[in-house]
């Protein structure tokens, strides 16, 4: 396992590492601290490359394969960086029956990337997500924290243009 698996080389800063060590030290005595530490680490770096997992593994004295096992089990943890604008399309039931599958297909078509992918310029990443609880507005997608509801496929290119 090396960072060559990842599309973008690791570029963590000493500040980020100092922050991560601080988090690890504040939580290391709690039972079951691995998940909260991974969540905070992802907040710091934006994703969890193998280099970050290695730091956590060494500090907590937990085998790297266990850390990697936990990271890859949960869909919230990402081994790849996200784009500047991360687009999530809800494929929960309420959105699905109202046509969110078509919204997702339209985005794939326009951006030319698949689920979990990132455009070459690092601008947009795309993911399918589970219910975000805005079922009243179905079908729904989010661009970073902005929520777009009651979508039709025709609206997609207009929305993306806002971020160009």
């Amino acid at each position: 396992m090396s960072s060559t698996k990842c599309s973008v080389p690791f570029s963590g800063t000493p500040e980020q590492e100092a922050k991560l060590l601080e988090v690890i030290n504040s939580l290391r005595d709690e039972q079951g601290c691995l998940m909260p530490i991974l969540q905070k680490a992802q907040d710091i770096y934006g994703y969890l490359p193998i280099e970050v997992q290695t730091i956590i593994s060494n500090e907590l004295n937990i085998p790297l394969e266990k850390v990697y096992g936990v990271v890859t089990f949960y869909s919230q943890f990402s081994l790849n960086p996200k784009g500047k604008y991360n687009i999530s399309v809800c494929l929960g039931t309420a959105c699905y029956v109202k046509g969110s599958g078509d919204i997702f297909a339209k985005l794939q078509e326009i951006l030319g990337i698949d689920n979990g992918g990132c455009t070459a310029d690092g601008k947009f990443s795309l993911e399918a997500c589970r219910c975000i609880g805005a079922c009243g507005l179905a079908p729904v997608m989010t661009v970073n924290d902005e929520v777009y509801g009651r979508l039709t496929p025709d609206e997609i290119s207009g929305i993306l243009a806002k971020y160009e």
Partner: protein
Amino acid sequence: MKTLAELNAIREEMEKTVGFRQETNDFADDYKYHVLVCGGTGCTSSGSIDIINKLNAELEANNLTNDVKVVKTGCHGLCALGPIMIIYPGAVFYSKMSVDKIDRVVSEHLINGNIIKEFLYPEMVNEAGDITPLSQTPFYKKQHRIALRNCGKINPECIDEYIGTRGYEALNKVLTTMSQDDVIKCILDSGLRGRGGGGFPTGRKWQLAKDLVKGGQKYVCCNADEGDPGAFMDRSVLEGDPHVVLEAMAIAGYAIGASQGYIYVRAEYPIAVDRLNIAISQAREKGMLGENIFGTDFSFDIDLRLGAGAFVCGEETALMTSIEGNRGEPRPRPPFPAEKGLFMKPTILNNVETYANIPQIILNGAEWFASMGTEKSKGTKVFALGGKINNTGLVEVPMGTTLREVIEDIGGGIPNGKKFKAAQTGGPSGGCIPAEHFDVPIDYDNLIAIGSMMGSGGLIVMDEDNCMVDIAKFFLEFTVDESCGKCTPCRIGTKRLYEILDKITKGQGTLEDLDKLEELCYYIKENSLCGLGQTAPNPVLSTLRYFKDEYIAHVVDKKCPAGVCKSLLRYEIDPEKCRGCTMCARQCPAGAIEGTVKNPHVINSDKCVKCGACMDTCKFGAISKK
């Protein structure tokens, strides 16, 4: 705070504040108006925070901050009509609010006292222009709110408002007047069953955790990992009334002898996480959590743990494994969590809605709760109505209410005059209920008898445009993705189910496949390790049971009656209607439409990608799908 007297002092002080927010009230408040704006996820997504900011600015500008109190509440239930604003006195319910309507609300309503009829929730105004009270509108009339009683009524970030609604009184009652066995007996007698899906009697769970192992470290957990796509009951309780969950967990802690609680909540619910954090720190400050609560020797504290997006973590043993910091894989039972749960210590796990009922049961008594509902399912149930229904949102009805009442009366029926096809309950573990069971009273046992299950309460309505084979495939795609991979029947079996369904939707299925499908379903149900695998085939089995004709149509006639499965669709241009305007040919992304100006066009089905763009663009209705 150490005594009931201190708690009562806060309650009396706050009673006029929260009591003011009733349709008819005898309470006078220092403020002339309370304006409640929904700050739940649905309304926040449609812009309610901007509305609150604008409202505050306008009040400031008009010198009204001492007359009008603005309260950011949790969910009112009618998410489809958000952002929602309710003004007291009078429970004046303004729906679909926007920033540009705020000027008029301030000048006409809050200054001049006139209700603005065109902003009102349409159901509140009849044809003659008379106003119907909110509680008498179809959406709210048949509801009975226990778990949701404070949602949309109080400020969830203010512990005093919760105390004003008799909050933490049940905890005081339990700690000062009841024994552990009294509490357990009360919950047992109430007939409360787990609201997370399984329907196991809550009191029985508590009794096992208290009696199986005497003394030592025990844990109380709350399952707030609401993973059913399309269900958001738990989120609404956490966002609208977080203290009720803390209070109930402390009561449970006392009953089984635990001093530590964990709430496992989805990270996808940032508002709920924020409000829980605020509630926990306020409860600690007031002494409702921590050492020696109410001056007794009972100590209890609660920590939050965030999930990371794994559906299987809603299963109790998987949830505990995840809190321990591992991959969220389930463990074989026995040993049951009541004996060896979190960190191998006796543990109880209940879901958010279950907890939300507990303080009310303690205060009002087991008989009060048991008087509602059906013989074996007591109390009420919250449903998240979604899909093809007019009133999308959250409803709480007594157990035993029929599907017809929920969908037609409360939900307002199906939009656009379409025909009802099925209601899906129980999410990926449940099944589809067809129109023929519209009048079955909803309770745990009835739903199982008709091949579905209560689940956590998602209720997705489907109309004639939804293909049931496609829906079954959708759920299987979900379970394949979410299966943790620990046991073979679930890991491989669900994948094979998905592949057969995929084959059928592509028109390559055979009648033999249908038999194989059913056989595999039963095999997976019987042999999977945990609830996820044991229930994963339900969407397939229930659609096979009620909508076999649709499967047959896909397999034998190679047609999708609902027109959803693209491989089985064909777009055609009616030469009689086509004027040769060339619009469709220009729209077609695949260059599949041929023809010359003013002559009928033809679709080349080899090239056609079935996107439907041509049909949407044709002004003459000449294109149809078959």
